């Protein structure tokens, strides 16, 4: 299937009598063509918009392993959505999960902190380890404090900015820590999320009054406040404008020094811009997994090549 601009045969009937600008040409989707590869947007080093970023100089020497997945399989009822995936998530690196819609990326991500268990029909096979421990043997709340998550929709809670971040620190035991002892931790989390300068004077304002990009960074601050080892991000920029997206991408690149980041994204450019490792999934299978340069520049599998060059998806 390829998408190509329809050739404009007659320009006369398209032009508006009052001289208004022409509508964009209709793009036609051809379904019955063989999957020929269109001229690829080159994403190799030195050409793509994201190539100016600082890649890790020591990419070949990996950071410490935080989580390992061995033969992870997840099914909703009879529908197997993740099929025997094995991956390694390392501190100091960003792992980008890419693939067409419905390929199991988000399910894989939600399985890492056992959020899939909230779906009654979900079943899981395979082993996930965090620092060598099976995650099933950890208490689920303890696991989720170590493996925190940012969602597609910015979802601050209906309370003040301060309380949103403090919520991550409160409610952990039977005793409620005093606000004053929490203050430095909240400030630090907001600083790490790059939100401090904008909101330091209005910590008591309702969080839902912030803009979408600020809300998402507040959600990141909230996730960081619990000092997780792994940060899961499920298409964190898909509801945001390009400027907020860039702010959050810069933030991801800063954060990866301190923790392991796994990001699900539909945006291939984004995967290349922020990802150190890229995993390409298709219909539940892990098709290709490797360094971003390799997956985008010299993919081994045909499917990956087609996908990263925009031939399908």
């Amino acid at each position, binding site marked *: 299937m390829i998408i190509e601009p329809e050739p404009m045969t007659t320009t006369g009937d398209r032009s508006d009598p009052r001289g208004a600008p022409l509508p964009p040409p209709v793009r036609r989707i051809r379904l019955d063509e063989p999957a020929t590869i269109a001229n690829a947007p080159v994403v190799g080093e030195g050409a793509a918009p994201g190539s100016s970023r600082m890649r890790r100089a020591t990419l070949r020497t990996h950071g410490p392993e935080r989580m390992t997945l061995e033969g992870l399989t997840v099914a909703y009822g009879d529908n197997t959505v993740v099929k025997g995936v094995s991956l390694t998530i390392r501190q100091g690196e960003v792992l980008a999960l890419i693939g067409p819609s419905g390929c199991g990326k988000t399910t894989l991500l939600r399985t890492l902190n056992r*959020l899939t268990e909230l779906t009654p029909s979900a079943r899981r096979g395979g082993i996930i380890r965090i620092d060598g421990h099976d995650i099933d043997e950890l208490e689920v709340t303890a696991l989720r404090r170590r493996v*925190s998550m940012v969602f597609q*929709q*910015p979802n601050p809670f209906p309370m003040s900015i301060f309380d949103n971040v403090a919520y*991550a620190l409160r*409610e952990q035991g039977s005793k409620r820590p005093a606000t004053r002892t929490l203050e430095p931790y909240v400030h630090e989390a907001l600083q790490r999320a790059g939100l401090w300068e904008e909101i330091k004077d209005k910590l008591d304002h309702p969080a839902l009054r912030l803009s979408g990009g600020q809300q998402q960074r507040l959600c990141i601050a909230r996730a960081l406040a619990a000092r997780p080892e792994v940060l899961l991000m499920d298409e964190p920029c898909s509801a945001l404008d390009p400027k907020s997206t860039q702010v959050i991408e810069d933030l991801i690149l800063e954060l990866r020094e301190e923790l392991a980041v796994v990001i699900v994204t539909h945006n291939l450019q984004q995967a290349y811009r922020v990802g150190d490792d890229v995993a390409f999934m298709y219909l539940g299978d892990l098709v290709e997994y490797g360094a971003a340069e390799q997956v985008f520049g010299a993919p081994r599998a045909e499917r990956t090549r087609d996908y990263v060059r925009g031939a399908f998806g």
Partner: protein
Amino acid sequence: MATRSTLPPLPSPSAPVPGGPGRKRRVNESVSTWRLTDRIGYLFMWAAGLLLCAIGIGIVLFMALKGLQYLRPSLLVSRPQADLDQSKSGGFLDPLLGTVILTIVGIVIATPLAVASATWVVEYGRPRWLGRAVESGIEIIAGTPDIVIAVFGLVLFQQGIFGWMSFTAQGGAVFGRSFLTAGSMMSLIALPMVFASTREGLQAIPSHVREASYALGKTKAATIRRVLLPSVRANISTGAALGMGRIAGDTAIVVVLLGASLQLDPQGDVPGLKTLKGTGGTLTSYVYNNSPAGEGNAPQKAYSAAFVLLLIVIALNFAVDLVARRGSAQGIETSRLGAAK
């Protein structure tokens, strides 16, 4: 394979040309191009809205005219007396207090029950048949006529174990009529409204908000207490205010379970509790008794009391609007959660 449509364009009747570059006036849709049935429907919608508006204003104006004619400040602060001479039969302080006490007792019982059951139905609700049974039970309560609830309550509260709630005669017979028993049954009148608005508020919270809390390592209890219930605070207040309006306006339970007496009639010695254990009346029973249908037969006072009752209920309705509006101003309106779509 997608092909271009070969069908000729459908005729579009007298489609007005969009305004040219020089025109300032915006061309609006004209009703005259609508089909007849649509025009009739349009007319009916306007007429229905205006008619209800007129009825509402009519009721308030009529009651204001009749009520204000006889309403004196002294009526609000003097106790009613049983007297044939209307100049000596006093005001309606006791019924006014009775309405307030009964409404508070009812809503204080109803709100926790309704919020707890709505939270259970939405957040747990397993096994599913039990969740459905709870909802059906509340629907049955909502559909039961108040006089049936009243009679049921009278039979229930005349049982010996409820003796502490009302007056007990020397032989051990339980009277079963008091503010406590009437308030308990009144809570069933208000409960469905609080339940429904709380449930709707909880259902409107997108699931990723709950998951965001779980993803921070929070328990379900902490999520409900600190995220979900604060989110539906405005819904709870709305339901409670509506329920209070229903309680203040109910008559059957007052007549059967409160005694509908002219004055508050405390029982026992404990301050506060003696009023709750005793019988009394409310504005509704006062209006009924003083209307030409009742034994008091003082229509002027009935009109005054009815006007005061109407003001109380209207005030509660305005409170609902105010709470809802303040809720949206603070951003705790549930539909704003995750609204950056």
